[in-house]
């Protein structure tokens, strides 16, 4: 099978859906000729024209609101939000408008829109261009949240998101745009709410999202060398969350570490850990361990920034403690 980059996968997914459905449009800052600062959308304006690939002013709430109205009246807009950090700017339009319209109208109005944005630290971009804010939106009923962990997931989840009749927020890891993975040439979609077991194992379950899946996979390789068999599971969407796959895995392994790049406090790791603690409690041999981003604004200095996110070595260290039955709180 051919391999393509995550960037190409997103581009292909959007291009295919735009060919299939003339109501799909993209709007955002520098999405047309510039193809976004990450060059993810290069070539789309040449094929689909400026009526469907629309450069907007630097007005995130404005163009997100326009997308909500366009979605309510017959289009399927994709909003390009250049950095996940800008989510704070669009919260009213996303959470008060898009997320609630279907419910508040008793099911009469729908908002089939996609907001694609990114997450991920260690790009040396400091506190306002490095955040992973998916937990904020996953908290809001009415929003779906997808977190692709490779080019394959990026393509399949994006196509599903565009066809979904609800607002969907997709977080791409901005450090993975050039990472290649095998992606079939023939069409495929990845259903929401279906976790993927990347690697089966018996001793411990590593549940990881987005950028942290490769961290978990690297940790699993290191653990294998020490005769610890780790199962790596990627929820792929955190709203909806495939609870049963996670629970079944932990019932088998009796230990779990949840790894996510959002802040640890009140975050995705907390939600998933509580699901496991509730539904697999009597199968656990150790407390569920959470590893999120450190609860500090992301610092600029590389030596400091690297301390804030989970790494394979730290996952291994924690896994070994859980295996030995050592209970220790480590942020």
């Amino acid at each position: 099978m051919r391999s393509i980059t995550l960037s190409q996968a997103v581009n292909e997914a959007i291009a295919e859906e735009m060919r299939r459905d003339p109501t799909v449009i993209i709007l955002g800052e520098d999405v047309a000729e510039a193809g976004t600062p990450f060059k993810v959308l290069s070539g789309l304006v040449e094929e689909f024209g400026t009526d469907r690939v629309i450069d907007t002013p630097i007005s995130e709430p404005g163009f997100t609101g326009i997308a909500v109205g366009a979605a309510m009246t017959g289009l399927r807009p994709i909003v390009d939000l250049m950095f996940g950090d800008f989510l704070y700017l669009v919260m009213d339009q996303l959470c008060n408008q898009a997320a609630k319209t279907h419910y508040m109208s008793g099911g009469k109005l729908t908002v089939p829109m996609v907001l694609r944005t990114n997450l991920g630290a260690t790009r040396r971009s400091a506190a306002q261009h490095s955040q992973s804010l998916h937990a904020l939106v996953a908290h809001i009923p009415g929003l779906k949240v997808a977190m692709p962990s490779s080019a394959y997931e990026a393509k399949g989840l994006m196509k599903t998101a565009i066809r979904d009749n609800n607002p969907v927020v997709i977080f791409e890891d901005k450090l993975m745009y050039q990472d290649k993975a095998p992606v079939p040439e023939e069409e495929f979609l990845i259903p929401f709410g279906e976790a993927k077991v990347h690697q089966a194992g018996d001793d411990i379950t590593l549940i990881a999202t987005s950028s942290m899946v490769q961290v978990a996979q690297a940790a699993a390789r290191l653990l294998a060398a020490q005769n610890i068999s780790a199962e790596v599971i990627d929820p792929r969407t955190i709203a909806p969350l495939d609870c049963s796959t996670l629970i079944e895995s932990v019932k088998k392994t009796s230990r779990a570490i949840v790894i996510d790049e959002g802040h640890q406090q009140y975050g995705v790791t907390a939600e998933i850990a509580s699901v496991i603690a509730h539904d697999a409690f009597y199968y656990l041999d150790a407390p569920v361990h959470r590893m999120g981003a450190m609860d500090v604004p992301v610092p600029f200095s590389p030596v400091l920034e690297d301390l804030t996110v989970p790494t394979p070595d730290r996952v291994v260290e924690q896994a070994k403690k859980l295996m030995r039955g050592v209970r220790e709180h480590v942020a």
Partner: protein
Amino acid sequence: MASNQREQWLRMYEQMVKIRQFEFQANQLYLDAKMPGLTHMYSGQEAVAVGICDALEKTDSITSTHRGHGHCVAKGAEFKAMFCELLGKAEGYCRGKGGSMHIADQDNGNLGANAIVGGSAGIATGAALTAKILGTDSVTVCFFGDGAMGQGLLYEVMNMAALWHLPVIYACENNHYGEYTKTEEMAAGELKARGEAFGIEAFEVDGQNVLAVNNLTQTLVERSRKGEGPFLMVLDTYRYHGHHVGDINRTYYRSKEEEAHWRDERDPIDNFEAHMIAKKGATKKELKEIRARVEQEAKAAVEYALQADYPPLDEVDSHVFAA
């Protein structure tokens, strides 16, 4: 007088009377403690909603505000489903899930009231973008109050609407108060100039004169269909009640004399009635009959809504997501 003009006058008159009557009954429901929550009365501003919506087709859209009952009636909604919604009943426009501040009636082009001040500016502009991209000739009117002039979203979308020549009309109902504060204490400069800064043609109109509002809107709708939009209308009007139904003691922010002046001298319904009679568009008797008939309809709708069923409890988690 041409019969089609007489028909239009009677239609607009009846719509204004319907709004006034709807609000009278809604206020009574509040005072009688029969309505959950509270509501924001549109009484006094009827000529704005009716003058504008009468110039629209059913396929044209509006977005509305927390003070939205008038827009909803003017765009063609029925009393029964509206009162049911106000009371949280299953037969309400939103199955009781939206309430007074969120009534949406998309069959008549009402994309919904919005409880965030200025919150629907993006939605209205997005509806206009849809019309442009799909090549329909639909026009969208975005209703908002003078208070929304303080929201940045409005200027972001006005900028894009102007850049992209979208068929949207921004209708600012200047009722002189944002909640409990005078507009001039909150808005620097001229309201009209806020649109003009983006190259948007802006107009001031007497919002108590339904014919003036209607004439201007007809022109702007026609020009919008030809791609000459967007436009801004600033409509001078007045809300008779407080910010909401519970805002009874208002003398700390506006005088009783001021309220009496607007009610006695500038009432949009009374003045239009006098105009119609003077121009021989209608007789006093005819108009009295309309008022009586509308009152009966409203009372019957209230009775119906009071007796109607609440939604089944298992609907609490339906409609979170669309299929």
